[in-house]
């Protein structure tokens, strides 16, 4: 398990060239798959690395299998991330009934698969099965079953 907070701003380095490709600007999550699709690299240009090309998430750097893995945004979720829409600490959290639950504090995920486990909000954790959307205004989750 890793947390998004630990990942943000971390350098991304290619194992084949030892070149720093950028730093982690954010992650691209598909809410339906509940999975990190890619890492968004900022600092230099808006490039993306598919999670499948991430070799390991180390304590000091995110290692990517090849420098060729850095590429332009691909698909709707990456296009939106390039426009600044991320699941990130401080993002407003809204349930699908239109009530605010607070702000996203952190996102827990599985390093190897990129599977999102949950969102921490204050003292509580919202499990990822409730995730509905990551948008410009808010992260939307299903209302807690009563």
């Amino acid at each position, binding site marked *: 398990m890793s947390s998004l907070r630990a990942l943000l701003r971390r350098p991304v380095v290619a194992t084949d060239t030892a070149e720093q490709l950028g730093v982690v600007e954010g992650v691209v999550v598909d*809410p339906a798959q509940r999975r990190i699709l890619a890492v968004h690299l900022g600092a230099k240009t808006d490039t993306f690395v598919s999670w499948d090309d991430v070799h390991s998430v180390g304590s000091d750097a995110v290692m990517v299998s090849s420098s060729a893995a850095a590429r332009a945004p691909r698909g709707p979720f990456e296009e939106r991330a390039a426009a600044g829409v991320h699941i990130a600490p401080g993002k407003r959290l*809204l*349930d*699908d*009934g*239109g*009530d*605010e639950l607070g702000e996203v504090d952190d996102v827990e995920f599985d390093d190897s698969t990129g599977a999102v486990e949950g969102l921490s909000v204050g003292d509580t954790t919202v499990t990822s099965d409730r995730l*509905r*959307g*990551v*948008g*410009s*205004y*808010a*992260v*939307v989750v299903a209302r807690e079953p009563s």
Partner: protein
Amino acid sequence: MRASELIGRPVVTLAGDDLAEIRDVVYDSERGELLGFTLNQRSWFGGKLRERLTADAVHAIGNDAVMVPSDAALVDAGEAPEAVAEAAPDRNVLGASVLTESGTKIGDVSDVIVALGSGARAVGYEVTGGESGDAVARYIPLPEQRAVSGDALVVPDEVDRFVVDDLAGFGASVPEFRSQLHDGTPPTGRMEP
């Protein structure tokens, strides 16, 4: 929630994008139905949007946002039902006196109460004034009203027993009121909020 409190609330898709904010609530006082919303752009200097949001396209109304399934929920005024496209001020129920069939004035309508939760439904009126003459707001369930004009609403006498003075307790009284109207059993007394 009071319909007036919805004004300025963001309209947000389930994908988390804010599309607009509520400019005004379009309500049909004759049918006692919430029809939809006119919209403003989502910015500090946002002007009117041509798009409308009809009530049937609303996913849910919450305390902080009006949720819609997707951006397809907004329709151009040209394609919206006429009542929502051209919100007529004469349909406004605000200020109308609420009179029972036997002639007791309950008060004047000061707001429309909208249900929180799925969809977009009007469930009652906030009324102020009336026989007590004070300015304290009270709430009545949306009746199967007998008649309505620009000046007054005539409601069944039973409504008088379902007046509550607290909005939090109001939600529970609506279903009871409706079932009572339909099965004709006498009410157990005034609803406790």
